[in-house]
């Protein structure tokens, strides 16, 4: 590559980086901006002075942010563990079951289809169902919803993985005396760790970020952080400072997490399209 091409490429990459990352910078700076600077023009990108008042406000011990944070953590962790476990089991079963009439494929496609319809279609009946079960505004209602949304991803991802899983390894385990449970636990799961990690990372992101179902079935006690954000848009105005601080609380850990789990994330996101 000659110099001009290299320079051009570097410039374009730099522009892409600025576009992608500038909003994060704006968000973070705004979360440190004094409240009175939000409404007047000409206050500049960088706050006149840095304040932590918005963080102090949202993390006021008398406030509920800690509860929402805890809700989000509980819901994300539980959903992820359950979704990955159930998804791995289901994917394994689908890959190994010899069902008649290509039933495995039908079920596999069924899992896939969940990605293709508007979640708003199920949000309302699901709300009614949870109302019937007396589960409205509980963690469980959100967890079930999140698991049902993420399990299909996990199944789909892991099915692709099982296509490559060496058949003889399992046959060896059968000969060694393992039935499906032990094969799964002792051979398959340990060897799937990277794929499971990818599935878990993806599931965790989806659950942490999910808004529609959480806002539908958990408006209050079991409210998660993303649902809280919409509350900063009040009829009087937008509580920019608190909203920035709260958004930062939601966004920054996820961004950092993404930096560390990049490999798994990329794998999880691409397995469907590139392999399917």
């Amino acid at each position, binding site marked *: 590559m000659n110099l001009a091409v290299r320079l051009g490429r570097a410039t374009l*990459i730099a522009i892409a980086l600025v576009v*992608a*990352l500038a*909003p*994060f910078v*704006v*968000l973070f700076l705004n979360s440190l901006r004094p409240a009175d600077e939000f*409404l*007047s023009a*000409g206050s500049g990108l960088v706050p006149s002075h840095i304040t932590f008042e918005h963080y102090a406000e949202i993390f006021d011990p008398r406030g509920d942010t800690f509860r929402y944070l805890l809700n989000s953590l509980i819901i994300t962790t539980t959903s992820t563990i359950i979704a990955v476990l159930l*998804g791995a089991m*289901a994917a*394994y079963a689908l890959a*190994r*079951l010899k069902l008649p009439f290509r039933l495995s494929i039908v*079920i596999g496609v069924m899992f896939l*289809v*969940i*990605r*293709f319809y*508007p*979640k*708003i*279609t*199920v*949000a*309302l*009946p*699901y709300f009614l*169902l949870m109302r019937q079960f007396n589960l409205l505004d509980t963690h469980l209602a959100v967890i079930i919803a999140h698991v*049902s*949304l993420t*399990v299909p991803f996990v199944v789909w991802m892991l099915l692709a993985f099982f296509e490559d899983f060496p058949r003889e390894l399992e046959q060896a385990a059968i000969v060694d*005396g*393992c*039935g499906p*449970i*032990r094969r799964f636990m002792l051979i398959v799961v340990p060897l799937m760790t990277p794929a499971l990690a990818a599935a878990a990372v993806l599931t965790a992101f989806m659950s*942490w*970020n999910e808004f*529609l179902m959480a806002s*539908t079935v958990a408006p209050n006690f079991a409210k998660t*952080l*993303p649902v809280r*954000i*919409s509350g900063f*848009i009040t009829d009087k105005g937008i509580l920019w400072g608190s*909203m*920035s601080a709260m*958004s930062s609380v939601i*966004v920054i850990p*996820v*961004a950092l*997490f*993404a930096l560390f789990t*990049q490999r798994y994330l*990329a794998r999880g996101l*691409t397995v469907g*399209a*590139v392999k399917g």
Partner: protein
Amino acid sequence: MSIPGTIPETRRPVGLVARLERRLGETGILLLFLAPAMLVIAVAQFYPLASSAILSFFDWSLARSPTVGPFIGLDNYARTFKDPIFAGTVTFTIVFAISSTLLQLACGLGIALLTVGESYTLRFVRTLLMLPMVIAPIAVGTIWRMILAARVGPLNQGLAAIGIDGPNWLGDPMWAAFSLIMIDAWEWTPFVAVTLTAALTSLPGDLLRAASVDGAGRWKSFRYIVFPMILPVLVLVAMFRLIEAFLTLDIVFTTTAGGPGYATHTLSFWIYQQGLKYFNISYAAASSWIMLLACVGIALAFLAWRRQVGKWQVSR
């Protein structure tokens, strides 16, 4: 040298798990493995889906009555098609989804081509570029609402600094629509880029070397070798993005709330309003089923296309 031929008494796998495995048999256990996931999905997805389908044939507004009203056949559907706001919503949604998808595909392909490679720097750049996608869509909306605030937002202030009078991003109907497209593209271009990068990486290096030996230039080898080979992936990505853009809801909530007026009502947002704000359950159900069928149609069309462009893979 030889192993003594003492045959241990226990020749079978032992323990509770083994007993369970023997009792239920291979198929039984595997069905048991499948069951919980199926159950969750049946309860939380397929049952609501089916009940929504059924409700769409009844007249029920939860605000007016706590119990389901009379069967009214296709009336809800007929009403949907006659609703001028629904029609406007559909138009906007289609324009939004297609523009946003095309923008993402173009930018994503560009970024993938720019950043493909295994060097440490490029990997780090790719990770950074992925960030918009991993954060909560609802937060994406709030961030952009701040940036786009017409009078005091950093974008217009920045533009003013270089002598450009920035537009009324969220207050003008056209600009609000454009803003939503831009925000969606900002959020999801990374998905396209990540996937296409993976597709590019999985191309056999020999092929590109062979092309360059054959004397194909940069553009030609892209046009005739690389592009056709990543086209199947591109089609799938386009499908995912188009359908998901079609379903966009979260960012609408926090940026424009569908406004000004009805200018940026996406279908999902409109159905949300009908269902969860006005509690017109059956009407919302009918609309969402129309939307669902549209999505299935889009998916099928894309999958057929994918099969067309992916024929070379079959004979691989």
